[in-house]
């Protein structure tokens, strides 16, 4: 799981959320690239972040793209976070003996703009949360950092400041993640993406 590296934070605010990841792509201890975000957009109000073996991340992403396209063509509407989460858990458990080595976090706003944050393990077990979720090589330290800085009912600006500081603090002490960060701030008004500077090592 730490072969390609990476870390992701999701923080929830008042009818909005922010999702941030680092940009490193490495082969064990060798940094190969520094332009690889691990967050993928399903649609304007649903984002998925995946950490683990990068080949499996690409495979799952292509499978999910196929399934959500078929869903939106059949139902003429975008998939909702809860349904997407169940579909992803099913996909991951399908490979119970021989799993994809990927941990995932989901963040979405449903049709009433209620917040949905959930993290999954490699077999698709769901752990919903109401405040924040972190996965990756420094997820343990990020949990501690986020616990200190997160406040309920933040708006987008406060969310951006909080999530960027937490990400930078977490990546500073970890060599398997880093090399820049990207933050997407999502609300009913749309998506704003920003790249943040971190230590480049």
């Amino acid at each position: 799981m730490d072969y390609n590296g990476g870390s992701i934070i999701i923080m929830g605010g008042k009818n909005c959320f922010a999702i941030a990841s680092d940009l490193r792509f490495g082969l064990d201890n060798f940094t190969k690239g520094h332009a690889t975000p691990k967050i993928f957009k399903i649609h304007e109000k649903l984002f998925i972040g995946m950490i683990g073996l990068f080949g499996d991340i690409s495979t799952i992403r292509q499978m999910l793209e196929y399934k959500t396209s078929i869903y939106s063509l059949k139902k003429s509407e975008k998939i909702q976070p809860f349904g997407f989460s169940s579909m992803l858990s099913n996909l991951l458990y399908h490979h119970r003996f021989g799993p994809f080595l990927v941990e995932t976090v989901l963040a979405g706003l449903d049709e009433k703009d209620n917040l949905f944050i959930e993290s999954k393990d490699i077999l698709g077990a769901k752990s919903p949360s109401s405040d924040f979720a972190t996965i990756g090589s420094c997820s343990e330290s990020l949990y501690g950092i986020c616990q200190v800085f997160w406040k309920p009912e933040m708006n987008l600006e406060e969310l951006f400041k909080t999530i960027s500081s937490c990400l930078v603090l977490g990546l500073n002490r970890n060599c398997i993640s880093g090399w820049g960060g990207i933050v997407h701030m999502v609300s009913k008004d749309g998506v704003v993406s920003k790249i943040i500077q971190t230590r480049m090592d």
Partner: protein
Amino acid sequence: MDTIISLSGKDFGICAIDTMAFKSFLITKTNINKFIEIGKNKFLAVSGYPGDVIQFTDFLQKTIQLYTLKTGLTLSTRSVANCIRKELSECLRKNPLNINLILIGFDKIYGSSLYFIDYLGSLQRMNFCVQGHSSLILSSFLDQYFRQKMNLQEAVQIIKKCSEILKKRYLIPQTRLLIRIVDEEGCRCLGLV
């Protein structure tokens, strides 16, 4: 053991690979061409066990040729890269192959592009890439000296400097590196360095 140095320049992609074939500690041949052409505007540089390499790349070459014959369409570099990645990631859990590839191609719309594909199925588009043990020696050098949109002379200069560094610091004396470029006219070999 193979050394592959590849760069993406302004409207061309360039790659240098060593020309040595070996079996355990013996050098069997010192003048082979390890590049594999895929269509007219793309080529692969592969490193890994020779048996796996030939098996996999033969299959790829012919599959893509068959697709082109059947549909009459030429695949873009990105499509070919994703096709290769899918095959490798399926192989990972059935019959693991230990090969790492660099795909370099030129499309009229997108320009030149360079893709690195791992034996685990990780696909990355990059500006420059070094493969093999020499990646540990040359990556930092290329970080410093690589510029976006270089012209051909600058790119060949950089590869010559890389070759000198390898001669100084790499334990296994490599033969001369064979350079190949791809641009809108197609692929051609430039010579040895």
